[in-house]
């Protein structure tokens, strides 16, 4: 938590070129003839070089599908990216052939998931899997690959790395497995690391270690991180900029500082209030009534309107657009009309 975390104050953010630019992304899932789940419904955002951006939202908000769409990992059928562009360094990832996108996945964008057990193959040793990545993606020879694998594991803080190479995934703890995943994801020093709930399955003390490791790797490799999480605490500890998603759309976007000190959207406010406060005693928690609307049946107007304490007639009829309130903060809410 030092000065390099807050580039907004130093004005660095404006100078950084965009690394990833997502525009009007729509990813739909065709469930049955008349049911279309609009999991991601018109999402736009960008990530600068060497920046940590968090997408936060509850289950069903579309945050994970957004992440999977970036690498074109949406299972088709039933899913399909029906609209939008995803540009990495100016190159549209949605136009790439299967072979080209595979190359991007290994070399330019690394990805880690919530449950490392399902991302690692249970019947191969750790060494086998790390070395295979190096052989396939970076044309290492077998012997050199194993040597490099030891280095990579040591870099992510795995003790006795040469022994761990011979271990199978089930023999490692959750934290260790996630370290292995990070080592593999960073092996080609990618420009972007997408981390989908990387610490959700871990204990708090291990979570703190893994988050530190991710930020450390980001600095070391000058990469950017797109962190997908439901945990606002994790967001506050790591992210520079935050995107709040609800009902397949971005409802607020701001620097971490603005978002936590001055949240605008009623959903963001309610979300922050529903986390039990460690420092103050509360008799009752603020709960958001109701539940996230299903992606195949969104309300006509604002998607948060049925749960919103400030709902107006207009909210039920007209769908609000995502608008800039200040140069750095965007919100999708009728309450802020005319404040621009």
């Amino acid at each position, binding site marked *: 938590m030092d000065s390099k975390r807050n580039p907004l104050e130093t004005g660095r953010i404006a100078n950084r070129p965009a690394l990833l630019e997502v525009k009007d992304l729509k990813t739909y899932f065709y469930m049955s003839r008349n049911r279309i789940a609009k999991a991601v419904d018109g999402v736009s955002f960008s990530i600068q070089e060497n920046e940590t951006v968090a997408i936060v939202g509850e289950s069903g908000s579309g945050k994970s599908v957004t992440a999977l769409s970036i690498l074109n990992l949406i299972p088709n059928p039933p899913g399909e990216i029906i609209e939008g562009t995803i540009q990495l360094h100016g190159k549209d990832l949605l136009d790439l052939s299967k072979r080209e996108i595979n190359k991007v996945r290994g070399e330019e964008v690394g990805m880690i998931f919530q449950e490392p057990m399902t991302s690692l193959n249970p019947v191969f040793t750790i060494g086998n899997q790390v070395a295979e990545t190096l052989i396939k993606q970076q044309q290492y020879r077998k012997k050199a690959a194993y040597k490099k694998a030891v280095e990579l594991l040591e870099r992510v803080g795995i003790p006795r790395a040469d022994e761990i190479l011979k271990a199978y995934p089930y023999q490692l703890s959750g934290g260790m497995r996630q370290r292995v995943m990070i080592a593999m994801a960073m092996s080609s020093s990618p420009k972007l690391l997408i981390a989908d709930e990387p610490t959700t399955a871990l204990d708090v003390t291990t979570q703190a270690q893994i988050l530190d490791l991710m930020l450390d790797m980001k600095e070391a490799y000058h990469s950017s991180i797109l962190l997908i999480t439901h945990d606002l605490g994790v967001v*506050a500890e790591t992210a520079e900029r935050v995107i709040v998603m609800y009902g397949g759309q971005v409802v607020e976007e701001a620097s971490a500082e603005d978002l936590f000190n001055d949240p605008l959207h009623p959903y963001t406010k309610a979300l922050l209030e529903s986390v039990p406060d460690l420092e103050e005693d509360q008799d009752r928690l603020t709960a958001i009534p109701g539940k996230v609307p299903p992606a195949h049946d969104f309300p006509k107007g604002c998607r948060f309107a049925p749960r919103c304490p400030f709902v107006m007639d207009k909210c039920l009829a007209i769908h609000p657009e995502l608008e800039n309130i200040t140069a750095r903060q965007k919100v999708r809410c009728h309450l802020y009309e005319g404040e621009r």
Partner: protein
Amino acid sequence: MAEKKEKLLEVKRLKTYFPLKKGAFKRHVGDIKAVDEVNLTIYKGETLGIVGESGSGKSTLGRTIVKLINPTAGEIIFEGTDIAAFNNRQLNSYRKNMQMIFQDPYASLNPRMTVGQLVEEPMAVQQTLSKKERKEKVLDLLDKVGLTEEAVKRYPHEFSGGQRQRIGIARALTLNPKFIIADEPVSALDVSVQSQVLNVMKDLQEAFQLTYLFIAHDLSVVKHISNRIAVMYLGQIVETGPKEHLYANPLHPYTKALLDSIPIPKVKRERKRTKLEGEIPNAADPPSGCPFRTRCPFAFERCKVERPKMREVGDEQQVACHLYPE
């Protein structure tokens, strides 16, 4: 705090060991000490929170107290009676007093039963109420946990996670229990729904004078709902105390580290952290002496040879650590 509180449950030197077997003849080669000499007192009407990381034994402790798992040794004294050695038949009359709420509302409800049947089932087993009275009670309970009457005829899969957890709570309350063990009841839920369920649990505690044992890994949730807190590490309780003291002034190095690792949803620049290295050791091969010594930044010689006893420090706070005088 001065008034004399009435004990509901007392656990004395409780041990739950799982034997490790090896070879063709299933030779007994050692034990996993999931719960290792735990002493606890729970007073009427309070909520005792148990926190710890995975592998600390907190769930096994909860399950041993309701005797879903039989203890290896020790006493479980519920309202003056030691139930540790009771068999299933003897337990029958006690079971209605202690109920459990589980973490996964998807796995703990029979998918082939309607919500009405699910909530009624415990009463049908105990057979103290007539059919009509049972139906009325079901409706009353569903209303209390915030579900509508139409829920009765629907099946669990038609409900969201938060609503299912409400069904689980209604089911646990059917027999008017005095004591409820909630094992990670909100950890599978989204934050906005989590707070709904926590509020319901608090309301019901007041309405029915319930005593809770609340097991969770999330320290902010535990703090919100508990009066007193016990911190577990590797099968042992390392610190207990009223929540105000424990959070403001944690004594055990592990409690400190645990509190320091919680990510706080506020943008703060300066935060000092006691960082923990490594991970929780294997419960089949725990360290000698203090269970935490392998990760403790303050460990010294004595921690290696002698297991620290619980000692009283200040106002009702107890800690098992050699850093404090006995």
